[in-house]
Structures are given as C-alpha cells and as structure tokens.
C-alpha cells in the first residue's frame, strides 16, 4: 500500500497550526509481521484541532499504525515525529487488574508529577464526564468491559494531552455512553486537541475531519463511503 492510497482526504483543509507545525507527522511507515506486509509506506499527518478516523478491514494495520505513532511499536522503516503530549488509549485496556480506578489515577498521574490528590481529583472529573461510577472501589478486573474501557479512556485523557490516539475507545460502551463519546470528540476538536481514532463505526465518520482508509487498494471495492465535515 502506498502512502497516497492509504490516505483519503476529507472535508476542509486541516485546522491552522498557527506556525506550530503538525502534532503528528508519520511518513513512509513500513511494518511487516513475518512475510506479511501490514503497512507499506503509510503517511499520516495530524494537526491541531483535527479529528482523523483510521478505518479499514480487520488486519489492515490500524492498531499497528496507532501503536507506531504512540512509539510503543517500532516500524521496520519510516519516521514518526510527535509534538506535544500523547494520550494513548489501547484497544485492550492496558490496566492493572488488581488496582482500583483511584489507584490507577494516582499511579498514572505520578507520571506527570501530579500529587495523588490532584491526580484523583482530575481523573474523577474525567470519569464523571464518561459516566463512570466514581467512588467505586472495585479493582479493574471486577469492572464490566464498558466500565473498564471508560477508565482506559480517562487515563488517556489524564494530563491534558494535545494529541489523542484512541483505538476503538468505545468498546463495550452502552448507547448513551457511545453518543457521549462522539460529543466529547467534538469538544476536544473545539479545544484544539488533535484526535486519531481507530473505528469500525462508519456511521460516525461524518463527525471527523478526515478518514484514512488502510484497506489494501486491491480490496478497496468494499471500502467505506467517504465522509467528512
């Protein structure tokens, strides 16, 4: 897959960066697993206040690209440049099973130098916005899938990151929480945050600025309809 075929530009020009440069610039990303080429020269640039959806068939490399952009996975070739703080929400909640929500907040907040009190207060505000049962002292393994995912998302938002990399962050959400999530995306956009979201929910693509389809060109016949602002 070439860079050009991977990216489908949508809607208006990206939001102005006011001379700050893009928050994320990935170029020529190549990733192979064994003999299988998952990503082959993919480019992705994301600017302030921009919402980009990564779509495509299963196994086309959406999660891999997001992990590479976060710096957690390493490309075989290519370059990723990031400006600002990243908030990364993995598809499988990267939680500690025997810690409660507040303990997660205290631990993750310590990474930013937040005191325990400040981290919990800040995190609880985020959790409340996501309809998480704040104050629940259950450890994360005892939470429902959707509730775990809300904690997963709140941890990505902790520390006020400029760039959000979200891998199907609404997995297990009920309908209300799902709608609420996309309202939040709109809010983040207005606040100047850049958001890259891996999604299979093609009905919501009208709410994003650009859609990047990673489906291999030879299989593009079933690619999703273009959408965008």
């Amino acid at each position, binding site marked *: 897959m070439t860079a050009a075929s991977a990216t489908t530009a949508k809607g208006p020009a990206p939001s102005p*960066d006011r001379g700050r440069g893009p928050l994320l610039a990935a170029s020529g990303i190549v990733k192979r697993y064994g003999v299988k080429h998952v990503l082959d020269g993919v480019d992705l640039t994301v600017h302030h206040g921009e919402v980009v959806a990564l779509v495509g068939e299963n196994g086309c490399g959406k999660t891999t690209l997001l992990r590479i952009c976060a*710096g957690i996975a390493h490309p075989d070739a290519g370059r*990723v440049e990031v400006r600002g703080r990243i908030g990364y929400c993995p598809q499988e909640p990267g939680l*500690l099973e025997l*810690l409660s929500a507040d303990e997660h907040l205290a631990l993750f907040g310590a990474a930013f130098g937040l005191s325990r009190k400040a981290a919990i207060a800040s995190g609880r505000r985020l959790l409340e916005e996501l309809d998480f049962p704040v104050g629940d002292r259950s450890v994360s393994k005892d939470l429902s899938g959707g509730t775990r995912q809300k904690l997963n998302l709140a941890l990505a938002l902790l520390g006020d990151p400029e760039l959000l990399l979200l891998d199907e962050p609404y997995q297990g959400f009920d309908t209300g929480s799902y709608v609420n999530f996309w309202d939040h995306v709109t809010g983040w956009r207005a606040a100047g945050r850049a958001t890259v979201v891996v999604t299979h929910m093609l009905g919501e693509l009208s709410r994003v600025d650009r859609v990047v389809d990673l489906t291999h060109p030879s299989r593009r016949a079933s690619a999703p309809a273009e959408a965008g602002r």
Partner: protein
Amino acid sequence: MTEVRAFLQRTLIAAEMQGRQLLRRRMALAILVALPVALYLAMLTQSRESAIEFGALGMSWSVACAALFAVLAAREAEPRLVLIGFRPAELILGRFLLLLVGGTAFAALVGVAMTLASSPVSVAALFGSCLLVPPIAVSLGLAVAAVLPHDLEGTLVIIGLVGIQLALSGGAWVNGILPMNGPIQLAYLAGGFPADPVGLMLVHSLVYVVALLAIAAAGWSLRVRVRRGRPAAPAQ
C-alpha cells in the same frame, strides 16, 4: 534536586502499587508461603539439618515466582506508563524494592521458624542463608521476566534453575555456577556440614544479584521503551 525527588516519588508510588496488587492475590500469597514451609517440613521428617537447605530453596522458588508474576501482571500497562513519563528504571526499582522488603520479612519469619525447629549449629549462618535468598531470587525473577515474559516459560525456567540445585548434593561443582549457591552453602554451614568460605559465598551472591539486575533492567527497558521522533517542523 527536583529531578531526584521526582524520581523517588515515581519509584515509591510504583512500589506502593506493586505492593497493593501483591497483597490482593491472597490465594497466590498463601501458596507462595506454603511452598517453602511444605518443603521444609517434608525434609524435616528425614533430617533436621538438611531441611534448612530445602527451606531456603523453597523460599527462592516462591520469591522468584512472585517477582516473575509481578512483572507479567504489568506488561500491558507499563509501556503506557513509560509513554506518559515514567522511566523504566523507576518501575523496575520500585518493584525490586517492594519485593525485596516483602521477601526479606518473609525470609526472617521462616528463619525464626527454622531456628526453632532445626536447632542449627549456627543461627547466624541460618539467618544469613534466609536473608540472602530475597535479593537473589527477586533479581532472578525479574531477569527471567525480562527475557521470557510469558507465564509458562518463565515459571519453567525458575523451576529448572532452583530444582537442579535442590537435586544436587552439597559438593557438586554445578552448584557453584548456579544462582542460589550462596544460600545453599550457608544452609550447609547452619546444619553443621562442610561448606565453601563465607566470603566467597557473599561475593558469588553479589555478582549474581548485580548481573541478574542488569539483565532485568536492560531487558525490561528494551521491552517498554518508547521510540520518540523529533518534533515535526513548524509550518512555513
């Protein structure tokens, strides 16, 4: 100074959260305590002196496996923590300190129990054997987890390393190149058997702790590392 303080704060909270997780695994903790006690009691029916060696090696199994599973439980979360600002060294050091303190407390209790039940020739050597176990076993568990971060593989390696030492007789030269030789030799001394010089055992143990910690730190840092590119150039 601020940087040192931040390092310590992050290390301590990593240790605290490790401790909270460990204490909540009550069944696992019960088995970890029961294993060396069972080994010791089983051998006690045959030889009060040799039972000390079995108690020490049983503890090394328990403590090394506790370290292994502590790492494995966090393998999904720790790259995220490094991504947002933790240093791998803070996570490894926090875990090492917590397990060292917990392991030492456990070893001291087992040492008291073995002193009462085995009537050792040298109480100092018995406690030396017990207290030498945690630093080596924690380092061993962390190193194995860094190199083989999978439940079954890691557990088998630890069972193999400690099991070989359990099966060997006192004078076997192979003991000398395996990690738990220091505690074993001190256990021999405690039981009134001939043993290597104490200084040599301490040096052997220290070399193993340093080498295993170096492997753990290098391996885990590699696994959780975040590759950061330079910031993208501003738009012209």
